[in-house]
């Protein structure tokens, strides 16, 4: 069965979605990801969707679900590289993915995750502009 690879990078997990997601694939990704988080007790998940050109309401919900689930398991989710058209579609669908933190590209996303780690380690209040 086709699966989306989940890469472990230290404390973080990196998922790059390079195909257009269909429902089954997205559901698999969801369960795989949660299992991998618990296996490695990861602190952060970075999902790169820069190659995804179409997202429907189901996919939007899956993304939101992943974020909430990882949050419960103490992992921060960052979605990076969303295409403008995808963002507009999601907003028009009424899904503003409030639980999901976004970043422009993988580099920024990693930075963001690290700063979050840093924050929670030191418990130091630091101004973070991507936090809602």
């Amino acid at each position, binding site marked *: 069965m086709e699966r989306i690879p989940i890469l472990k990078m230290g404390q973080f997990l990196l998922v790059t979605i390079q195909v257009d997601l269909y429902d089954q694939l997205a559901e698999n990704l969801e369960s795989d990801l949660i299992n991998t988080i618990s296996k490695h007790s990861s602190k952060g998940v970075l999902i790169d969707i820069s190659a995804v050109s179409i997202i429907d309401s189901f996919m939007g919900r899956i993304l939101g679900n992943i974020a909430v689930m990882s949050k419960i398991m103490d992992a921060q989710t960052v*979605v*990076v*590289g*969303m*295409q*403008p*058209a*995808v*963002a*507009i579609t*999601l*907003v*028009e669908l009424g899904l*503003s*993915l409030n639980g*999901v933190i*976004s*970043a*422009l*590209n993988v580099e*920024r*996303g990693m930075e963001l995750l690290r700063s979050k780690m840093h924050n929670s380690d030191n418990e130091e209040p630091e*101004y973070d*502009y*991507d936090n*809602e």
Partner: protein
Amino acid sequence: MQNNLLEGLKEHENKLLTIWSQILQESGAGDGAMEEEESKEFASLFLSALSKSENAQEFEKVHDLIVGIASSRGKRGFSPRENAEYLISFKQAASQILSELIKDPAQLYEANLKLNEILDNMTIMTFEAFMKGREDIISRQIDEISEISTPVIAVWDGIVALPIIGTLDSSRTQIVMENLLQQIVDTGSSIAILDISGVPAVDSLVAQHLIKTVSATRLMGAECIISGIRPEIAQTVVHLGIDLTGIITKASLASALQTAFDMLQLNVVKRKVIVG
């Protein structure tokens, strides 16, 4: 049969033209030399189309011509009423000649009926041509306005600003959003400033569009600041019960820029001038 009745007109083309221009002169719908040429062309094409019976292709040429004449007259400042009168006076001239040519009342009636049908159709076409000309102008202007009215300005490394001037409707919001998001991707900016000081009024619909734009920007991984909130706008927003609490709003572009600098941990300081 009916066309044969009308065919008689062809031999009296010059007379027809004279009567026509006379009527035009009297009604004050005339326009000098340019019109005379148009009229001549129209009359000859019309009559030759008549003589070639029900040939639709021939009449198409006449239709094209009359559409051309109507739009050129429209550009010269004629009202659609004057355009219609132009053709109606042709009809008058033609039926005047017909009544001289045909003596039998029944046949004359038939011929006039046919003439009316053809020319009324053309009169409607002049109206349509006029309206189409206007609509073309309007749609071109709409395109132009939407194109020039949404500039995205890179004000700093990582900060883009978008001043919105004029009312925000759904189609414009779409363009604004697309431009802004594309620019964010292209420049890799993490902060977008949406300046609405040029928006005359904010109602619930406009506010909704603004909220949409902010959400889309956030989804992209950038933060959006709305600036240029005038006192009246603040009042309206509160009176309408619109919730803007999740959105960073600033009174002026300057303070929005300051906030953006703070977020990027930038500091603007005045340089110390060392004297001596």
